[in-house]
């Protein structure tokens, strides 16, 4: 056991600093209100205890002015905090394009990380300092929640869809990753570590021996194996949409709507193709729901995004 008692968590990302500032400000406002209420109660309890000589004449009568006064007062103070908190939340939860994109698959009871270069890790995540790291989160079984306390970021990982999160680490070091949504017997063991490294060390780590083909290359093999290339390949005679340049583009759907082709769309298009039919194409693609595991799916999507 360390000699000191921790009072404040480590802060090692841009998001951590921003959240700390807001937290301290809101704590200060809450503390002021608490002191006000507690102080009033204490002074009234002492001053107007039974038998005390304090005068009881002319108690406060202006009910409505008082009520409206403190209602508006507290509301204004807290609406400012609401706006501040909402602005940071939108910034945190709308992922920017990442310098690096890493796929994270949660399963009972481990985190599996897949780097674009094909490197794989379990319960560890190596990232460079000062770069925007974008995470695509998937779950293979139940709902998990990906949580790095030192970065003040958290996002539930829901089976059947992709969620995204991002961070920009500011300090090198090792910080815990936790699962914060109860996910079964060994929920408390579903922990890992994010290892923030200097750029040079990170490059060395990426080049370590033993890492095989990149994620997209692995995906290309699976793309053939599952028969996707039979229709979506270059020499195909089937009338299927080309996937080149698909990623990030706007797709026209048969029902007249358009949708941005992000990971979540591509995932749905593979698993539930009949739900979002591309305008001008017959709905002939079979569903792959239940046939492709989360790991393989990520690789195929990485390949499609590389086209």
């Amino acid at each position, binding site marked *: 056991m360390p000699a000191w008692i921790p009072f404040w968590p480590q802060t090692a990302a841009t998001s951590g600093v921003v959240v700390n500032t807001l937290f301290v400000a809101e704590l200060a406002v809450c503390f002021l209100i608490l002191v006000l209420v507690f102080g009033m109660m204490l002074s009234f309890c002492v001053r107007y205890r039974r038998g005390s000589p304090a005068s009881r004449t002319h108690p406060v009568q202006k009910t409505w002015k008082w009520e409206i006064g*403190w209602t508006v007062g507290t509301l204004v103070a807290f609406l400012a905090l609401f706006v501040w908190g*909402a602005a940071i939340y939108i910034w945190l939860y709308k992922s920017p394009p990442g310098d690096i994109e890493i796929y994270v698959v949660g399963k009972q009871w481990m985190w599996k990380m897949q780097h674009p270069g094909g490197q794989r890790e379990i319960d560890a995540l190596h990232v460079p300092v000062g770069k925007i790291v974008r995470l695509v989160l998937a779950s293979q079984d139940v709902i998990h929640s990906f949580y790095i306390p030192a970065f003040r970021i958290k996002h*539930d990982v829901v089976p059947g869809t992709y969620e995204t999160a991002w961070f920009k680490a500011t300090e090198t070091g090792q910080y815990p990753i936790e699962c914060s949504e109860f996910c079964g017997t060994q929920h408390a063991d579903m922990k890992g570590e994010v290892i923030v490294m200097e750029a040079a060390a990170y490059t060395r780590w990426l080049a370590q021996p033993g890492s095989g083909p990149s994620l997209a290359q692995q995906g290309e093999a699976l793309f053939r194996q599952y028969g996707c290339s039979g229709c979506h390949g270059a020499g195909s005679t089937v009338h299927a949409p080309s996937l080149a340049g698909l990623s990030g583009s706007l797709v026209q759907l048969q029902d007249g709507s358009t949708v941005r082709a992000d990971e979540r769309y591509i995932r749905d298009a593979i698993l539930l193709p009949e739900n979002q039919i591309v305008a001008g194409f017959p709905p002939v693609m079979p569903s792959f729901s239940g046939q492709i595991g989360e790991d393989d799916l990520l690789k195929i999507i990485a390949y499609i995004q590389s086209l």
Partner: protein
Amino acid sequence: MATVAADLETPSFLTSENTLSSWLLTRDHKRIALLFFASITVFFFVGGFAATLIRLHLAMPIGFLQPSIYNRMFTMHGVVMVWFFLIPSIPATLGNFLLPLMIGAHDLAFPRLNLASWYVFNLSGLVLLYALIMGGVDTGWTFYTPFSTLYSNGYVLAAAMAVFINGFSTIMTALNFVVTTHRLRAPGMTWYRLPLFVWAIYSTSIVMLLATPVLAMTVLILAVDHVLGVGLFDPGRGGDPLLYQHLFWFYSHPAVYIMILPAMGVVSELVTCYARKTVFGYTGMTLALMAIAVISFFVWGHHMFTAGISIYSAVVFSLMTFFVAVPSAIKVFNWTVTLHKGSISFDAPMIYALGFVLLFTVGGLTGLIVATLALDVHLQDTYFIIAHFHYIMVGGTVSAFFGGLHYWWPKITGRFYPEMWARFAAILTFTGFNLTFFPQFILGYLGMPRRYYAYPPEWQPWNVLSSAGASILAVAYVLPLGYLGWSLIWGRRAGPNPWHATGLEWQVSSPPPQYNFARTPTVTIGPYAYNTEDGSYTAQDGTVHA
């Protein structure tokens, strides 16, 4: 006095009949209140037992319970405390006992339905005990899908059925209260002459009636999913696990207000009586109760800020949550100002009430912290949340329940509790509570997730403090069981109105006679006509007491 002599000749509801069947088949709201009290006391100690094991286990980084046992303990603690103690606690006991007395009625509108509610409650309790004894449930009290439907190996179905049946008891009681409040008020008892406790019970009942059916539907779908494999919440079959969360919180957030509104009613009665002063801003207090009841239906999404709901809906839910704090703030300020220029005595119920105001304020303010979107991202599912809602539900509701129990104890039993012991227990509750739960705020910001059976060693000091506080709290909760039981036989006899209070319930003998009022009283005045300067007061039936 002639009326007292007449009352002494009428046997009280406790002594009028003595057979077992006169209790088990009673239609007297006062006896049914005591039956409910017996049932929820059993469940309070069942839930408390689980809490004791949890805190003992967490005193060490790696405790003595197996993970699967630990997970069953916090699930049992949550399910039992929420549905089998907190929700029925004040309404089914104090509400049942006092509502007819306070409005000048002879009983609730549907006495048989009231008794049926108790039997249904016990049936649901038996089903729950079956689930617990057979092997327990390891999902947490929220039964999140798809874990609960596809992966859990516990008795989810039995526990879900217990909750389903329990809901009918809640609905029966709530319906009874609403109809009683509308139809059975004594002549002259207008809406704005109702004691605030009645307003609180009334607004609670409205929320119960509107929210509980949604819980029933949700649990039923969960059961169908679980048994027949329909897959409405199963992503593997095209279902949506978040749909379950929406439905669950659409009930369970209003349920938080089901737990706290009656407590606010109790505290309003206590503060005004022991300050010998009319409550400040009566109309504001009633409107605040109703506003909380309404807004409580529009904030459920704040449990899902990190779950993957749309960013903009999260913003709206956050805003609504800030709005619901406004009526709560009005209430806190009004209780405080009620003390101003009062003549305050610090009997045990008042100590509980003042403790409630402080703990509720801390719970409310930390509620705003977790309602702030960016902060919730960090704090969601950590011990900060645990501390926050225990400040509301335990520091708030349980304190108010004990305060109300002491305050009306002389009315219910005809005997005084031992005052010094009660004050000691009240202060012990406040101390033990803060020591238990304040360290959990710090653990939460440090990033300790809830439902973890093990944690890193550096967090041990805060956990040890919390467990130490829990042991004090346990003593503070067991103590009343001893001295209140003692007072049943050896307690000093209390007259009809030991606190010199103004409510109609204090104008009948203690314990009240079987049909409450020999003649239906006529109400001529609002509820809190206390004269602070000379200590006199005017009861609601118009009688002036020096």
